[in-house]
């Protein structure tokens, strides 16, 4: 009964929705492309529905699609269907071709972004999560990874992304799929770097687009530049604390109270609290401290009186 009810619900979605996830699925099927069976590799009806609903909120990146063993399809998505400078979440899903249902257990590893700078004949990578992880237990079939691009695509340089996929023992690859990385609009600067000795670190602000007026969680990742630079930049093993001082440059550097620094979390991210008293451009001045509490970057109080290391966020 429950499943039947869900079918009806799914049918209703099929009739009222239209999105890019339906690509390649023949019309006229009551459920939008998915057959729920008792296949233990695949999602239950509830899980499939949740995953389906989530995938409606994101957009597919066709160049990152691949097929494994002619039995499985693997799709990749981002929030907007595009990439931009700084932190981008990438969502992966694998489906069984026979039923189009989502496969519960698969792995995405070896994410390797690469920038080829044609004029300089140089290649380098960028901060990236090494693998994709389940991020919501309600729909384990969707895995999340992230890439934080340090520059945009241009005439002088282009980005590619590669990864390995393992679906129920079958292996596949996406090899150097071309990507376009856009610049961020004015008033948004979500990726910054700092140096400690000879090491370069990248600060990727992860959730600025979710912020609203009021109290917000601020989440970021700190990655370390690799040697050689073509190796993906993994999360820094060193532990830091990031003090934040949000200011509104257009309002006489107005600030907000009770902001809390970003500190390392179990999942490898850094989290703190940022309070925003209104919409507009916020310049978040940063002071980086090492595990011993010594300032290692930022906090240098330039002529303005504020750290020269900052993120810009316009909400």
């Amino acid at each position, binding site marked *: 009964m429950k499943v039947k009810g869900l079918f009806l619900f799914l049918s209703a979605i099929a009739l009222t929705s239209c999105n890019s996830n339906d690509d390649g699925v023949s019309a006229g099927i009551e459920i939008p492309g998915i057959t729920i069976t008792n296949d233990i590799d695949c999602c239950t009806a509830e899980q499939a529905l949740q995953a389906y609903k989530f995938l409606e909120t994101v957009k597919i990146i066709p160049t990152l699609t691949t097929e494994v063993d002619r039995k499985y399809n693997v799709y990749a998505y981002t929030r907007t269907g595009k990439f931009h400078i700084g932190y981008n979440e990438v969502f992966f899903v694998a489906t069984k071709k026979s039923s189009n249902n989502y496969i519960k257990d698969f792995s995405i590893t070896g994410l390797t972004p690469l920038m080829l700078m044609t004029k300089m004949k140089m290649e380098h990578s960028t901060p990236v999560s090494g693998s994709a992880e389940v991020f919501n237990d309600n729909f384990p079939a969707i895995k999340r990874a992230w890439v934080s691009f340090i520059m945009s695509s241009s005439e002088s340089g282009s980005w590619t992304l590669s990864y390995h996929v393992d679906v129920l023992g079958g292996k596949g690859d996406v090899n150097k799929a071309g990507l376009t990385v856009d610049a961020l609009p004015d008033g948004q600067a979500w990726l910054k770097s700092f140096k400690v000795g000879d090491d370069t670190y990248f600060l990727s602000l992860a959730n600025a687009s979710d912020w609203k*007026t009021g109290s917000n969680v601020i989440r970021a990742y700190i990655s370390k530049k690799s040697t050689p630079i073509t190796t993906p930049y993994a999360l820094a093993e060193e532990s830091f604390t990031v003090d934040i001082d949000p200011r509104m440059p257009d309002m*006489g550097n107005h600030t907000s109270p009770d902001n809390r620094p970003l500190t390392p979390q179990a999942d490898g991210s850094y989290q703190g609290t940022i309070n925003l008293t209104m919409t*507009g451009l916020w310049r978040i001045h940063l002071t980086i401290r090492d595990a011993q509490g010594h300032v290692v970057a930022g906090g240098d109080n330039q002529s303005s009186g504020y750290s020269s290391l900052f993120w810009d966020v316009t909400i």
Partner: protein
Amino acid sequence: MLGTLLLSTIFLTDTTAMAPHHLDEVVVVSYKQGGKRSAKGQTASIDEHLSELSHVELVRRGSYAWEPMVNNMQTERLSTTIDGMKIFYACTDKMDPVTSYVESGNLQSISLNAGLNGNPQATGNIGGSLDLRLRKVGFAGAPFHLNTSVGYEANGQLQVYGADATHSSRHFYIGGGAFYRHADNYKSGGGDRLPFSQFQKVNAFVNTGLKLTDNDVMETTLIVDRASDVGYPALNMDVAKAEAFITSLSYKHLFVSPLFNSWETKVYYNHIVHEMDDTHRPDVEIHMDMPGRSWTAGAYSLLTGSVGRHETSLNVDGYYNRLFADMTMYPGGAAPMYMVTWPDVGTLNMGVSFSDRIILSSLSVLHLSAKVSWQQQRLNNEEGHQALSVFFPGMRRQYHQTTGRMAASYQLSLSDLRLSVGAGWGSRAPTVTESYGYYLNNTFDQYDYIGNPRLKNESAVEVNAAINWQPDKTFSIGIDGNAFLFTNYIIGQFETRLSPMTVGAEGVKVYGNISHAIIANASLTIGWKPIDGINWNTTLAYSLGHDEHDDPLPLIAPFSYTSRLTYSTGRLRLLAEVKGHVRHTAYGVKYGEKETPGWVVCNLSTSYTLQHVTLRTGIENILDRFYTTYADWNGIPQKGRNIYLNISFEL
């Protein structure tokens, strides 16, 4: 306690020796005879009429929409009603006290109840309550009456045009009219023009009455008021438009019973749209849009009766008000910045009030009144709630308060001596600005103010006394005084941890309760009629206000004096007036107030009535003194010499 307070405030009084309740006054706005009135007659603005009241001072932010203060307390400690209807201003910067949404032509009179003994619909009236009484011709008026007036003032080229007409019969009446005012920038003493002191206003009203039976009456009122292009020289912004729509329907039953007199039930609705404007200002750092909205719907039901020596009234009232204001700032080239400054606060308020006037003997009267109100406030705007939650983590969406007041006064009238004493207690809920206002810049002290949803109610004990001695018909002397002893007085307090939002602001203040404060007022009035037709009247007034550290509160009047010499025959009336303030030494330096020098001005006015026509002319500030009073926001100068002329025609 009472005795010492009486002694400490004994040297004070009122100018209305003739009024039945010594602290309560009425200023007559309309053409009807009797009572106090402005020398300019009906072309006077509401603000000029208000200034005739002896416990009233007016805060001026420009030449329009002055904010009345009663007993040295501003809007938040007063109740202002229009015929018992609640109405709330819509500007976060107090550019539009509700008295600005009516016109002289709408009103019969303005009645003031000083202190806690408010009119039945008043709530939160610690300092006093003003009721703007609408003009209704009633069923016993002339079948047709027409009144027109035209006024001109040389300083600022103020033009006033007004006309209203009424029809009255035994079963039906209707009255209606329209008013228009226009003023350019005025010149201060010495001849300098004050930029952004212009304004323009139109107002129209209609009211009707229908007698259903001999004892049942239905009445309607409608007022539409629109001010536009109003300059506020004391502020950083002007007003593009301020619009009010005020309407009511009432039903009144008169009893032919020994117990009850009348029972009136009224439902009403009003809304205000207010839009500030900085587009005409030079040197605007960031252009801003700051609109505000206020909606109020309510009802009251008032039953009056008399039993033996008691004249009693029982009133039940309720209203729902919503206040919303926001601000969008446009920095050149960058993204607009937006904030909600009044988070769409819905206030549901219900109250019950009772009053009893007991005629103890032919010489003495005891008056008792009490009211209990309950209100609930809800923040309907999520963004505004989230923003305030940054400062008050865990704050709720909904709050409620219970407030009350009670007052008693006793009057004794002997042949040449009249005496009254009174006492009361009352509380008020914090206003929306005080509870939920968000980064409201106050140009008075250059601080940004943030509301505090956790404020306690403010309460006060009031004591008052008055004595008037009139040994013969030619001379009278009176002293009156009152003192308000506050607990949990609400005022902005420094919050150095916070950073101001407004460019150029000194810092941030958050509203808070201070444990106690005192405001006391005293006045002395002398009247002398040496010969018939000549009347000399002098009033001296003194006030003080201290916070819990004995530091002066802001906007407390310095010692002031007014002396008037009137000559009147049947048709002609001449008035010479000298008034002034001494140097304001006890100014609230802690609250950002600046010292104001003393000043004195002389005015002359005359009126002459010939049949249907009344001519009024006068000259204000004859010596063209440059001056500013303690109540002139940011020290903007008052008008320099001004000659006015107005003519009214009645049929």
